[in-house]
């Protein structure tokens, strides 16, 4: 199974803790890239610039900020936020993190926790598969400009099912816009050019 490379940013002032955690992450074997934020005022900027998949942040590091407040400020809803607990008393503030790692965890536990975070990319394993017949039908309706409700009626499905199909299509193809789907559909002869919305020819 092909796994996508995961980018970690670790916000931690202690060299020892940072190096230790980086070593444990490195042992997991999949592809990782780790960067570090040493100073609190660089946190937001660095996350914006580096776009990590996972941000590991020491509770003491963010101080008064709550995980949800931090998430809002970072403005990245898909970011996996991991709290790092170096003092036992911080345990009570861990709500709002996707996972917490403690200084007292064994490295095997940390490995498990981190591996468990990756299923967010779970689609990756199926992504090689081509679309099912039903999914192809839905793609062709989407690019012809039908709404989810209209597609549901045409195919006698619930709107909810159509939305689930669309999400699966986006995950399988890694194409998220309907303009992108249009190109895919034409390349794969699911629709003809005249059937899709849009204008503009091949003017140079």
């Amino acid at each position, binding site marked *: 199974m092909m796994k996508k490379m995961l980018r970690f940013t670790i916000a931690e002032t202690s060299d020892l803790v940072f190096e230790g955690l980086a070593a444990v992450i490195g042992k997991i074997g999949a592809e990782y890239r780790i*960067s570090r934020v040493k*100073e609190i*005022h*660089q946190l937001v*900027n*660095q996350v*914006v*610039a*580096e776009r990590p998949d996972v941000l590991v942040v020491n509770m003491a590091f963010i101080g008064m900020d709550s995980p949800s407040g931090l998430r809002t400020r970072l403005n990245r809803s898909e970011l996996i936020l991991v709290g790092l607990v170096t003092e036992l008393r911080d345990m009570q503030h861990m709500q709002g993190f996707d996972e917490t790692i403690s200084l007292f965890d064994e490295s095997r536990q940390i490995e498990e926790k981190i591996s468990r975070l990756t299923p967010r990319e779970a689609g990756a394993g199926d992504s090689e598969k081509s679309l099912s017949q039903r999914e192809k039908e839905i793609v062709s309706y989407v690019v012809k400009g039908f709404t989810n409700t209209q597609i549901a009626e045409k195919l006698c499905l619930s709107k909810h099912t159509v939305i689930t199909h669309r999400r699966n299509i986006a995950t399988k*193809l*890694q*194409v*998220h*816009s309907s*303009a*992108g789907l*249009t*190109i*895919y559909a*034409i*390349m*794969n002869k699911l629709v*003809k*050019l005249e059937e*899709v919305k*849009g*204008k*503009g*020819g*091949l003017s*140079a």
Partner: protein
Amino acid sequence: MNTKMKYAENDKMSALVCQNYYMLFVLSRFGIPMGFGESSIGEVCRRNGIDTRTFLAVVNMNLNGETGSKEIEKVLIPEEIVRYLHNSHEYFLDYRLPSIRTRLLDAISDKDQHDVAVAVMRFYDDYVAEVKKHMQYEEQTVFPYIRALVQGKAGKDYHISIFRKQHNQIESQLTELRDILLKYYTGKTGHDFNAVLFDIFTCAEDLRQHNALEDVLLVPLIERLEK
């Protein structure tokens, strides 16, 4: 591409480019001509009327993702950053994106794949229109505001936080087109196709850096100025 090194005024300009040839794009937007011989970064900047600290801030941010530390912010001149960003807008809209368009059109004009070519070009043209809108907003609203702010003449109805909140990832659609061509294109491909695909890769990365510069260097700088 990434040597994790911070460049300083006394480093040779030629060394910077040889070690990081992607910096050619940055140089071109600063309007720095080649032929710098053994001159240092500082000398080349002064010769061309460019603020060295702005140049170094842009370069180091591009290379290291190095960002608005307080020391860097203190020495930056907002108008100089704006000047660079403005040049970058012209560069993307008047040169880079049109040049990719011409070559993309050439590369996919396969007679058997006419419909695909039309769909791809529509996507591309819509994308460029979006980029134009995005950059025009900055040119017409954000930059004039910054210039007024520096002169102490800014009105009360605009703040850089408005920009920060709505500033979207400008390169994501181009990345999507790149991936579609890469994974699903079924027409004939050859040297031209791969060359333009390569250009799309570098242009998307360049646009991402351009956006990051606005988010990471410009916004904090202006926020500080507003206080």
